[in-house]
């Protein structure tokens, strides 16, 4: 089905199910319970899960297949955001043109950057992409202020010329929509103590995620994908067989740039604003982290990685010392204070510390990321099973 083999189809179905039932899966705790703060099923966060999932899936096409480590992909995300917001300012608040234009603009931008950067490889390529993204960031902050809004960023305003929408009523807030369906519209369902939120914006973003994930499976399994793997494993041999690696790598670069643009456009569609900080190099670093954490070169890895990082960013950074004290209240006071003092640096504002540590641990001990971890676990499990079978 869909020209996929059985295994890939299973992965695709897993992703579809995860995306469809995310509002349930991410809200496993009753609303009033003490564990409710671990619930991640609110629209804003779920949207971020899928949008950064798209970003990481695209990045994985470049980094996972060709091995070229780009430190500048945030620039394409930012370019996509700016393009989308300008469509909303000039044409219509409908998200479709905004997203199409953001993909196209990011594609053209990445074609330019990739065409230059791909003349070099290895660390030089990383530095070149880094230099380009820092240049875009600095320019967006300073000289390009008329286009980018500088430090304040851009938001759609009531009196923007929106050619298709016509004038808005005085005092009305321009809202992103899909043919009238408001992105922030949600349907709350309560089941006993649980409550689940179904957000229209989330499902639109999830549809894009599923689409881009399907596309990435097809790219992974296509002859083109094989060529990209050849670039990673041995460029020299590829050249000797009469193939020029450059067009393939450039195509991969542009595709992943377009994914980043799509993510940027979706970010704007969900939350209509854009700022230069999206292009900062730490944002590029973040997508690298997501891909690595999930598993480079695997299909589902980037989706898992982006989910894990965004989840931690939001949930861990919300925990404060009071909450810790309530958790460990069952211990004797002295012990409680000691434990809270030990854990405290890692939570709340210190969640970056946790991120850094986790990241080091993954690179040191588990270079294949979460996916490899899961595989090792299942192998261990199977081995144990086999042994017990032999014993019988």
């Amino acid at each position, binding site marked *: 089905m869909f020209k996929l083999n059985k295994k890939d189809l299973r992965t695709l179905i897993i992703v579809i199910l995860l995306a469809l039932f995310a509002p349930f899966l991410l809200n496993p705790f009753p609303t009033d319970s003490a564990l409710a703060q671990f619930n991640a099923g609110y629209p804003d966060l779920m949207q971020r899960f899928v949008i950064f999932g798209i970003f990481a899936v695209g990045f994985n096409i470049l980094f996972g297949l060709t091995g070229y480590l780009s430190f500048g992909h945030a620039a394409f995300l930012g370019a996509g955001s700016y393009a989308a917001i300008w469509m909303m300012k000039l044409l219509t608040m409908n998200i479709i043109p905004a997203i199409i234009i953001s993909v196209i603009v990011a594609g053209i931008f990445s074609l330019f950057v990739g065409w230059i950067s791909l003349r*070099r490889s290895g660390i*030089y390529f990383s530095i070149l992409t880094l230099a380009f993204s820092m240049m875009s960031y600095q320019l967006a902050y*300073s000289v390009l202020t008329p286009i980018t809004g500088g430090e304040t960023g851009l938001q759609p305003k009531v009196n923007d010329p929106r050619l298709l929408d016509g004038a808005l009523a005085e005092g009305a807030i321009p809202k992103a929509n899909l043919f009238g369906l408001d992105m922030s519209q949600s349907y709350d369902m309560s089941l006993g103590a649980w409550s689940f939120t179904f957000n229209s914006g989330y499902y639109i973003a999830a549809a894009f995620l599923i689409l881009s994930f399907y596309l990435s499976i097809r790219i992974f399994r296509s002859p083109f994908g094989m060529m990209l793997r050849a670039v990673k494993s041995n460029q020299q041999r590829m050249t000797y067989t009469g193939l020029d690696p450059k067009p393939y790598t450039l195509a991969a670069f542009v595709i992943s740039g377009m994914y980043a643009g799509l993510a940027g456009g979706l970010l704007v569609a969900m939350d209509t604003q854009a700022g230069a900080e999206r292009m900062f190099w730490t944002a590029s670093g973040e997508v690298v982290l997501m891909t690595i954490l999930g598993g480079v070169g695997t299909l589902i890895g980037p989706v898992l990685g982006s989910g894990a990082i965004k989840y931690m960013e939001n949930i861990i950074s919300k925990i404060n010392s009071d909450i810790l004290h309530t958790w460990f209240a069952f211990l004797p006071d002295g012990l409680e204070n000691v434990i809270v003092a030990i854990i405290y640096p890692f939570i709340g504002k210190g969640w*970056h510390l946790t991120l850094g540590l986790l*990241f080091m641990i993954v690179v040191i001990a588990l*270079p294949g990321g979460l996916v490899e971890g899961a595989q090792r676990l299942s192998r261990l499990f199977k081995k144990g099973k086999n042994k017990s079978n032999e014993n019988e």
Partner: protein
Amino acid sequence: MDSIILQILNGLDKGSAYALIALGLTLIFGTLGVVNFAHGALFMIGAFCAVTLNRILTLSHQVIDNTRTDFLGNPLKVDIPYIYDFFGENIGRAIIDWSVPLSILFAIPIMIAIGVIMERGLIRHFYHRPHADQILVTFGLAIVLQEVIKFYYGANPIPSPAPEAFKGSFDFGALVGFDPNTIIYPYWRLVYFCFSLIVIGAIFAFLQFTTFGMVVRAGMADRETVGLLGIDIDRRFTIMFGIAAAVTGLAGVMYVPINPPNYHMGMDFLVLSFVVVVVGGMGSLSGAVLAGFMLGILESFASMREVIDLLPGINQIIIYLVAIIILLTRPRGLMGRRGVMED
């Protein structure tokens, strides 16, 4: 003419910082072949060594001064640093005043220790992993170090002044025969420049004229052969890592009066220092120094009013622009060796 000299002078102090950091980075890369993204964090730790020493020196106890009263009429409580008790008030005051230069002595052992621990504890396990893994693990380490510093010192910049003797500026133009008041230059920046020249000279002399340096250079050229000759090259490279960390840390220590240190200053300098190293040529020590000064001076020229009017925004991007042009036209960098990282 005077404005040109002024810009060159302005570029020198930033260029010195770039050159020192890039020198440390190249030492690590040239000896161990490791791409160290935690290098900016070493610079930051150096700066915080100065802050720490200042805090240690100003540790005080309260004394009630009966001769003075506060606004409520109670006897005034005065903080007396312990160091006044040890050395008397005048010397104590001078020591605190000179805490930044004194931090050099404080920072060298600490930075060498940090460098050695980092190399032994983490980086040695990554020699045979791909460069991407090295970049990623050191990037993670940089985040961790940065967050630890943030946890202990807070997120705000901590101003630490230069010694009283070096505060203020002097009229450089008048010294060399220009009109007075055209070229004003702060003392401390000159100190920083001279300091960086001394450190760079010391490193080159160390590598050039000592047996240890000779072995290290031989190891940089061909590690395997040196190992086969029965020399424990790993141990020497570990020490070089410590020295590289110390060079970078010293750059941070002395930079404190120019730019109050905060926890993310390392990340700010990291990107730039990598650009500097790449422009100079991976693995070339003199290239790193040359590129550091060159980019610093170019940056300050690009921020001249006339240039900005001509090309708006050029001051923000000049370094990256130069890096892109150099990488595309001279892939090995200015003075890069053949065959280093040309994969």
